[in-house]
């Protein structure tokens, strides 16, 4: 068990045959996208301001879009399916931002603050 964890950690951090520093491949884009996704996830969990939660959701959607475009470029070059899906994700993100901000303005009119814990009345 301990030895397998050791091998796992060694493969995780020192596997340089696939993660070349100077030759940019698909895994660099995937790791960058995972990093942006986890940054957005951290903001989504910890922040108390509703605007900042919305911005974190935007960062998460951008990470997903980066994944789509990287796969479209590296897995099937010459095709545009991933790019088209990323454009659809952009349209959905715009719709989500508009609806979310309108809801936030409405909440701000009813209760004067926009803290996430102040409108947790439905929480059991």
């Amino acid at each position, binding site marked *: 068990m301990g030895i397998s964890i050791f091998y796992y950690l060694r493969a*995780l951090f020192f596997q340089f045959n*696939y*993660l070349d520093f*100077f*030759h*940019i*491949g*698909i*895994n*660099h*884009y*995937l790791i*960058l996208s*995972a*990093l*942006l996704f*986890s*940054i*957005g996830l*951290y*903001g989504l*969990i910890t922040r*108390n*301001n509703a*605007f*900042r939660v*919305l*911005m*974190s959701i935007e*960062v998460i959607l*951008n990470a997903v*879009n980066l994944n789509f*475009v990287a796969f*479209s*470029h*590296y*897995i099937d*070059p*010459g095709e*545009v399916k991933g*790019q*088209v899906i*990323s*454009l*659809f994700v*952009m*349209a*959905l993100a*715009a*719709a989500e*931002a*508009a*609806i979310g901000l*309108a809801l*936030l*303005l*409405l909440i*701000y009119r009813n209760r*004067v*603050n926009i803290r996430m814990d102040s409108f947790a009345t439905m929480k059991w």
Partner: protein
Amino acid sequence: MELLFSFSYIPFYILAGIAVICSLGMILYPNLIRAGFLLIGAFTAIAGLYFMLSANFVAVSQILIYAVGIVLVIIFAIMLCSLKETASDVVRDEDTEIGDIKARRLIGIFVSSAFFFLMVALINSQNWDLIAHTTKADQLLGSVGILSKQYTTKIGAFMLSDYLIAFELVSILLLIVLVGVIILSKKNINTLEEKN
């Protein structure tokens, strides 16, 4: 062109660093409006990464929709919410006053870092050279201009042939969102019902 491609790690790391630092600043910066402006930097850096991935149309629409449209809408909403003097905690985050903020931070760090390391392990466990056409992509990268032109025409053709239903659904969704936002952001919704 080969020499140019061999140095393409420099713009990648610069753009990735800008994106990561701006997203972290968006999370951690105390002033909310400046955090919103930091988001422009992150989105623009990601648009540069799209240019590097020879997705020019997606990059330009990223700049148009995200870095200008959504961020400006968010900043205008923040300004609308912080008109009153009593609501200074809209612009300034008051996260430190909450009791369980440390627990939430621990949970957030644990969940996000666990997700990140899991993803890194999964990505590194895959032999991408067998799946990804890296060499083919490198060869195609030499003719970015011609390819991007083809990409833009192909996107238009795809949206009106293969993805037609999704395209129409997105247009219907945007119409619904337009009407819904107008109704939600009226001064008071109850007057509509009282008149009827």
